[in-house]
């Protein structure tokens, strides 16, 4: 059904496109909303995790006897308490996961692979006793040499991190840290470059960064004597938590219920599991509920940040501005287990442009850092930093405005993708036009050391499975339940879609998020899929309600259902003797026409459509200190259809803010022994509102032709352009090309001084 849907681009909507107050807003701003750490149960114990102080070490022995005998301690578990799992991969919607590796990450077995790797867990009557107990656990380590960067891990003599790891290329006998090599090619590279008038080649480095969600990971596990487990946690996907916990603990999925708490940010970092199986196992051992909440340091050390990377990018263009060839080498830090987003990086890096000849080589590399997790358009920001900087340099060499240069080379409907079928209707051209016509682009930027930069971003967006139920109440109001955790305002979108279809007031629709026992399977809130896929399930469920209501009216009026008309929330008949009924009036008649009305729909959406964004940034650089001030920032993004424009704008602004943080400040800093040095938010520095201007937004709407409402998905692509846009702006401000993230004052100053030094030498040489 999904693929046959045609968006009606001329549709006029009554509720879609309006900005009602979000239904969960009041509880959130008044502190009544329940987040994971707010849950409490009678007899509840508190759990804590012992973590590795080493980047890479063999665990020779663990002695938990002293900890177990501390008064107040109820249970201690180690990796030996978890079942051994064979390799098995599963797609969660934002990348593939392997339950064996998840199990090894949840509690280390014979080796610890990064600073912060979990070794043991304790349940005690309070958190302080649990903390004391951790200190009593004796671990004997044999410290091993570590490989902290892709360069170090790819060297021939590099320490091997996962002894069992093999890749296809190197064969079954070769131990390696390279989990995967992907290659995409098109045309003939040498021929392509031969036709280029200008070639730019640069090497880029980006730092590992964290998503920076404010709420730490948490879980309450309650194991019942009948073998059933209940988990309360903040997650982006209850069904994913159920599936992964089931695999790690070898408990059937049907015996696990996951209840979603409100979530204080995820951005891809809460798709997986860390504490959930530990809380359940500790509960099983003690017979009591066990609550576990990470500290900030644990979040930074041991939950998935996104990959740091090395990218070499060479591109060629003709004098008249046509891109002709690209040669790209990219390696991403996977962390301690396979699965960096380098594949997505490779598929997005030049996806926005028509380039007839290219070779892209991409490597997924194991390093002694925490296993990376998804982060908003995972892999695409690193990639765009490289390609959008090189494109900017090429536009400069061709003396073509950087927006026009992008327009000239932009992919359009029918253009081939880097990997996959040709694009259907896409809105990249419209997005570039929107930036070109923006007030920002038309404004003049004046002053010393100021510059303007642009960059674009591409993201696939996801579809996947969703379920929705719409219940009609006797008073004519409705509730709508989906399995999608609400991170970015999806409750409001689900209510709007329900109200639109049923012709009722959006404030009379109550949007709910179901647990795994209350609603059909629903994939994670990720991949910008929720409004598209769960929104479509809601749309279809509401239409199911409408169909049934027409039947009820037909029964009341002794007509056929197709003789019943429905418009603006009112049912009527061609028969003038029959007075029309509103939804509310008809709801009073449900009992006598067959009972309650519930609509439902489940889908596996295959109609996802890509999103494009283009971001313009003005900066001012202090050339003596390297400090960058962002003066103005505008983003244009194709939303397909903005269901609730405020939350579309919120996504655009949020991703841009994170992208600017990535560009200017954020980085994981490890010391020589592979220990993370910045484990708090004073040292891991995210931007605040004081660091950013108002981020101006332009919503572009090129409807997704395969979606009944034209929705594309808006959650991710906004984070892709900012690093390159800021770098391009810095170049235009002071003539220094930055190829390393973050462009923090120390790093930028170093580049400025290096250039000043080189210029001085050139002047001296000229004088000689």
């Amino acid at each position: 059904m999904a693929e046959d849907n045609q968006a009606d681009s001329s549709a006029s909507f009554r509720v879609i496109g309006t900005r009602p107050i979000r239904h969960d807003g009041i509880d959130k701003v008044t502190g009544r909303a329940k987040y994971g750490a707010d849950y409490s149960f009678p007899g509840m114990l508190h759990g804590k995790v012992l973590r590795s102080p080493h980047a890479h070490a063999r665990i020779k022995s663990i002695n938990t006897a002293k900890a177990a005998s501390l008064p107040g301690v109820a249970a201690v578990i180690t990796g030996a308490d978890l079942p051994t799992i064979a390799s098995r991969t599963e797609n969660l919607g934002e990348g593939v996961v392997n339950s064996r590796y998840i199990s090894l990450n949840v509690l280390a077995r014979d080796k610890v692979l990064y600073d912060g790797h979990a070794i043991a867990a304790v349940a005690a009557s309070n958190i302080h006793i649990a903390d004391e107990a951790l200190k009593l656990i004796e671990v004997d380590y044999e410290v091993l040499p570590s490989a902290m960067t892709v360069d170090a891990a790819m060297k021939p003599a590099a320490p091997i991190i996962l002894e069992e790891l093999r890749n296809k290329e190197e064969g079954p006998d070769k131990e390696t840290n390279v989990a995967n090599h992907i290659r995409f090619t098109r045309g003939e590279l040498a021929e392509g470059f031969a036709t280029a008038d200008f070639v730019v080649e640069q090497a880029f480095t980006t730092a590992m960064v964290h998503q920076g969600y404010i709420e730490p990971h948490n879980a309450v596990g309650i194991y019942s004597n009948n073998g059933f487990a209940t988990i309360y946690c903040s997650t982006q996907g209850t069904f994913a938590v159920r599936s992964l916990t089931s695999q790690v603990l070898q408990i059937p999925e049907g015996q696990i219920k996951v209840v979603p708490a409100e979530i204080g940010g995820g951005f891809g970092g809460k798709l997986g599991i860390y504490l959930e199986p530990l809380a359940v196992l500790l509960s099983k051992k003690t017979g009591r509920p066990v609550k576990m909440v990470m500290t900030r340091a644990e979040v930074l050390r041991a939950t998935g940040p996104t990959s740091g990377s090395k990218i070499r990018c060479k591109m060629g263009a003709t004098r008249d501005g046509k891109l002709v060839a690209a040669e790209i080498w990219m390696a991403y830090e996977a962390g301690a287990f396979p699965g960096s987003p380098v594949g997505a990086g490779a598929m997005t890096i030049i996806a926005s442009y028509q380039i007839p000849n290219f070779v892209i080589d991409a490597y997924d590399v194991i390093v002694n850092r925490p296993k990376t997790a998804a982060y908003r358009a995972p892999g695409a920001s690193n990639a765009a930093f490289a390609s959008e900087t090189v494109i900017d340099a090429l536009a400069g060499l061709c003396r073509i405005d950087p927006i026009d240069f992008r327009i000239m080379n932009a992919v359009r409907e029918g253009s081939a993708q880097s990997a996959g079928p040709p694009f259907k209707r896409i809105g990249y051209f419209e997005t570039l036009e929107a930036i070109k016509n923006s007030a920002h682009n038309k404004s003049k930027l004046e002053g010393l050391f100021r510059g303007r930069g642009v960059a674009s971003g591409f993201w696939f967006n996801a579809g996947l499975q969703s379920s929705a139920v719409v219940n009609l109440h006797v008073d004519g109001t409705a509730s709508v339940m989906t399995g999608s955790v609400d991170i970015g305002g999806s409750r409001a979108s689900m209510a709007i879609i329900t109200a639109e279809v049923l012709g009722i007031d959006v404030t009379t629709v109550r949007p709910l998020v179901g647990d795994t026992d209350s609603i059909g399977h629903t994939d994670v809130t990720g991949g910008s899929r929720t409004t598209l896929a769960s929104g479509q399930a809601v749309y279809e469920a509401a239409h199911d309600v409408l169909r049934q209501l027409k039947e009820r009216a037909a029964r009341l009026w002794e007509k056929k259902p197709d003789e019943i008309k429905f418009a603006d929330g009112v049912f009527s008949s061609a028969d003038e003797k029959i007075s029309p009924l509103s939804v509310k009036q008809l709801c009073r008649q449900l009992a006598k026409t067959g009972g309650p009305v519930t609509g439902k729909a489940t889908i596996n959406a295959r109609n996802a459509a890509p999103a494009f964004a283009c971001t313009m940034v003005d900066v001012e650089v202090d050339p003596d200190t390297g400090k960058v001030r962002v003066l103005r920032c505008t983003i244009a993004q194709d939303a397909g259809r903005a269901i609730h424009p405020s939350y579309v704008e919120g996504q655009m602004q949020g991703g841009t803010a994170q992208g600017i943080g990535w560009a200017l400040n954020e980085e994981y800093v490890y010391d020589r022994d592979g220990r993370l040095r910045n484990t708090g938010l004073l040292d891991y520095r995210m931007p605040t509102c004081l660091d950013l201007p108002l981020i101006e937004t332009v919503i572009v709407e090129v409807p997704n032709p395969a979606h009944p409402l034209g929705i594309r998905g808006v959650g991710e692509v906004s984070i892709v352009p900012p690093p390159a846009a800021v770098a391009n702006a810095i170049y235009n401000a002071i003539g220094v090309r930055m190829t390393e993230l973050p462009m923090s004052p120390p790093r930028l100053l170093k580049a400025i001084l290096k250039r000043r030094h080189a210029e001085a030498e050139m002047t001296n040489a000229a004088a000689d």
Partner: protein
Amino acid sequence: MFPASFEYHRVSSVKDALALLSQFGDEAKILAGGHSLLPMMKLRLAQPAHLVDIGAVHELAQIQEQGGRILIGGLATHHSVETSSIVKAKLPILAECAALIGDIQVRNRGTIGGSLAHADPAADYPAAALALEAEMTLENPGGKRKVKAADFFLDLLTTAVQAGEILTQVSFAALGAGTGGVYLKHRHPASGFATVGVAAVVTLKGTNFDKVRVGITGLGAKAFRASSVEKALAGKASDAIAAAASHAADGVDATSDTYASGEFRAELARVYTRRALEQAVARVKA
């Protein structure tokens, strides 16, 4: 993030506070605004058995002018220094320095005496106190003694305050005619502390420097007077500033941390010294 257990004493006079200090010796710590001590206690870097809260000794919060000197009680908050009409008129550089400390919540609680006595290597006040040649009054059971700023900061978190003493007052000479001062800092992006902060106070005779005082914080283990910069400018005109400022980090073992390397800090010290001196001169001329 819970401090070790301690006993809390609230006193209403310096005399009572001193009595408790001599009674408990090393076990006791003075609590003023608590903005340095309490975080250290929460991290268990400090575990005093007794806290002597001088918050109710109201006379210590006064700011007054006496015989050409500005006297600021140790308990005066950053906010009261920032907004004091006396300080703004007679020591504008100090009001500006106070205004750059932390955020409004910090400035409402933190005190000048607490900040100076704690001697955080990245605190703002020490640079200004050095450049303004402040004089600290230390009280002990035997009476009072005065210590010049130049002799006050000894090392990392270490000052001339002896066990059993309380810093009760900081005194400054009002800026005279022909004198201008500026405090500039590169804020640590998260904490707001000075990655490097430079206070410059200059007196001109005609177009040439008569007196130059430069205080630098954040660069090394303690705030210091950049005497090589000061000497290089003696008797010179303002075109000598750039060359002189290049000596700002001379001989200092610059601190490195996850945000800024020692090399970067040294460059910041040179840049901010030059800028502070240029702006201080501009202020005299204005």
